[in-house]
């Protein structure tokens, strides 16, 4: 018995293509999401802190420097100042910064002067001016104009009129505008750095996800392979269990299940083999006494006529039943050989029409069976002549016994010379629908009364086995016009598994 092998296509379709819902994809997506969120959060926090720190520092430095210079230059200023004085103050304060990025505007009432005449000082908003007016402290603001960010600092110049340390506003306001290009660049770099760190982090996350997926998927895949292997009948398949995680548990359970399965299957097969061996042994043991009995049935038949009627009847009964018993045992032996896989084909190149005719002639059926056979040598094939004879004789015999005449034996090739079709049609009542699936089963009797018929009850089973061992098919059906039809299809050329006739 061969284990039923499922076509692998179905299983592969379910597992093979990487789908979006696959474990690997899901793991990768999860890892990437976690990495992205982590990187983004960390980056954003770091960025904010760093940016604030950087700006604060540069702002403090600027304000301090401005204050120092204004304090240093203010005492020299004439009061009330003229526009010229204001301009000199602005220029001097601006010059305090060596890089020359400072633009300074000084106002006094309606007078105003700037270190850079061309600069419009739009960033010095009225709100800022009002803030400087109302506060003696330094006021600053970051102003973004276009894509430039500037730090604008405003302060009032105070002077110590009383000399008692009490500072009074002089009404002169100094505004400083510093473009924050360096800081912006620094912040940009920070952003770039965060970005640069995020991309490898994401890559690393994906890589880790793949590794983790592989770690998880490898046992899963091994499990899948092992399951398929079991399904294909290799029951000794086991998984290597390493580690102690859930997958290892699963593998362990799988192994236990497989072992249990293997054990029960082995037990079943053992029982089946024992049952078959028993049938074979019984047939074998019956054969020797039958050989002796068979040898003398002819003697009984010949002498029965000379005996008194009762003895003659008894003798004839013994003779007839011995012949039947011998046939039954022969059939049982034949079935046993099929079961044991010991049935061997003895192939010969034959003309099928001639073979069929000989089968009918050998059993004196030529007049009882109509034939529709092709001309000589039209259908030739490499077959086992004895087995073909058994097939045809069983089918025709069955039709003559259970069907009704006319019985038709038909043979035709499929045109390619690869297959032959043999049909046996009868004109009887046909086969009941509930019996039809079982006609090729051993000892299957269509009526439950189990009336004994002429056949051994194994004829059609042996027919089916003989066809199968040729690689052919046999099926039974009812004809629409009435009667049963048995159809045998046989391959005529078998390149492989031929047992070549020796030269």
């Amino acid at each position, binding site marked *: 018995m061969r284990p039923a092998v499922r076509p692998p296509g179905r299983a592969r379709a379910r597992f093979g293509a990487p789908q979006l819902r696959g474990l690997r994809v899901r793991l990768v997506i999860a890892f990437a999401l976690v990495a992205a969120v982590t990187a983004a959060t960390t980056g954003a926090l770091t960025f904010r802190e760093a940016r604030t720190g950087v700006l604060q520092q540069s702002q403090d430095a600027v304000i301090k420097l401005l204050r120092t210079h204004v304090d240093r230059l203010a005492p020299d200023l004439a009061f009330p100042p003229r526009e010229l004085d204001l301009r000199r103050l602005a220029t001097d304060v601006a010059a305090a910064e060596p890089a020359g990025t400072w633009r300074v505007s000084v106002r006094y009432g309606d007078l105003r002067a700037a270190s850079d005449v061309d600069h419009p000082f739009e960033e010095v908003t009225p709100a800022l001016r009002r803030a400087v007016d109302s506060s003696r402290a330094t006021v600053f603001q970051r102003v973004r104009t276009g894509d430039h960010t500037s730090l604008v600092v405003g302060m009032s110049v105070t002077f110590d009129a009383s000399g008692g340390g009490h500072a009074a506003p002089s009404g002169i306001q100094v505004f400083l505008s510093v473009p924050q290009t360096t800081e912006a660049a620094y912040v940009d770099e920070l952003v770039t750095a965060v970005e640069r760190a995020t991309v490898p982090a994401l890559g690393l996350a994906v890589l880790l996800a793949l590794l983790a997926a592989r770690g998880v998927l490898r046992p899963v895949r091994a499990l899948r392979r092992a399951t398929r292997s079991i399904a294909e009948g290799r029951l000794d398949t086991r998984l290597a269990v390493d580690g102690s995680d859930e997958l290892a548990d699963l593998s362990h359970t799988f192994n236990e299940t497989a072992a249990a399965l293997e054990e029960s299957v082995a037990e079943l097969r053992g029982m089946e083999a024992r049952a078959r061996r028993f049938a074979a042994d019984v047939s074998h043991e019956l054969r020797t006494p039958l050989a002796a009995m068979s*040898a003398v049935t002819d003697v009984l038949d*010949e002498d029965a006529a000379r005996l008194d009627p009762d003895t003659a009847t008894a003798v004839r009964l013994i003779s007839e039943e011995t012949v039947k018993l*011998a046939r039954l045992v022969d059939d049982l*032996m034949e079935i046993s050989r099929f079961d044991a896989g010991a049935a061997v084909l*003895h192939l010969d190149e*034959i003309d099928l029409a*001639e073979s069929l005719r000989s089968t009918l002639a050998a059993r004196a059926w030529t007049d009882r069976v109509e034939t529709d056979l092709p001309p000589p040598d039209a259908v030739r094939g490499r077959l086992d002549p004895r087995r*073909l004879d058994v097939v045809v004789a069983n089918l025709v015999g069955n039709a003559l016994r259970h069907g009704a005449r006319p019985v038709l034996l038909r043979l035709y090739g499929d045109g390619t010379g690869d297959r032959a079709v043999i049909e046996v049609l009868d004109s009887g009542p046909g086969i009941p629908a509930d019996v039809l699936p079982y006609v090729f089963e051993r000892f299957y009797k269509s009526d439950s009364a189990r009336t004994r018929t002429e056949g051994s009850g194994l004829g059609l089973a042996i027919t089916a086995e003989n066809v199968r061992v040729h690689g052919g098919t046999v099926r039974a059906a009812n004809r629409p016009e009435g009667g049963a039809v048995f159809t045998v299809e046989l391959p005529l050329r078998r390149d492989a598994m031929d047992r070549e006739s020796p030269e």
Partner: protein
Amino acid sequence: MPRVLLIEDDRAVREAVALALRRQSHEVSAAVTGEEGLERLRSFRPDVVVLDLMLPGMPGLDVCRGMRALDQTLPIIMATARGDDEDIVVGLEAGADDYVVKPVQARVLEARIRAVLRRAGGSLADAGIPKIDTYGDLAVDRAGLSVTRRGEPVPLAPSELRLLLTLSASPGQVFSRQQLLQAVWEHSYHGDARLVDACVKRLRAKMGEPPREPRYIQTVRGFGYRFVSR
């Protein structure tokens, strides 16, 4: 009266077969073991041997070989269980002429014995008037039923002789195995083609044919055999 040597270990089978054959006017000598059978060969001088292959002690196949060594032309019929395919093949190669499958009915065995004896006897009535056909270095005496190769007699078993006679009667004609089974062995159409193959093999060996390129008996692939006279 044909003399049949029956070698069969089972008492019931031996007695039954002997009884049936005696009623068919054969003179039967029954031996229990192979050793006993080989001894009877000399004392009983059978026309045909019916040999059970399943024997205690000396195996049937060895008995068959032993008999062939003593007598190249003695017809031997093996009795075997169907399915013992290896034994059949080896038995045929060891020189058995035919085989029957047990349990065998008396009339089937009787028919086989008659057939093999007909092969051996041939047209004995015509004996004495030599009708010799010559093919190369092979001379076949169809009346005297003898074959010589370069003047040396070739001892042939009945099946081998009948096969050679059948094939050489129509040189060039292709015979299928089933045709030869019917013509030589008088089997029904669905006989065992291995009989033919084994017999051809033995015949070629006895005729000294080179195994790769047989000169006289050629295999026609897919059909059978033909005799080529050159």
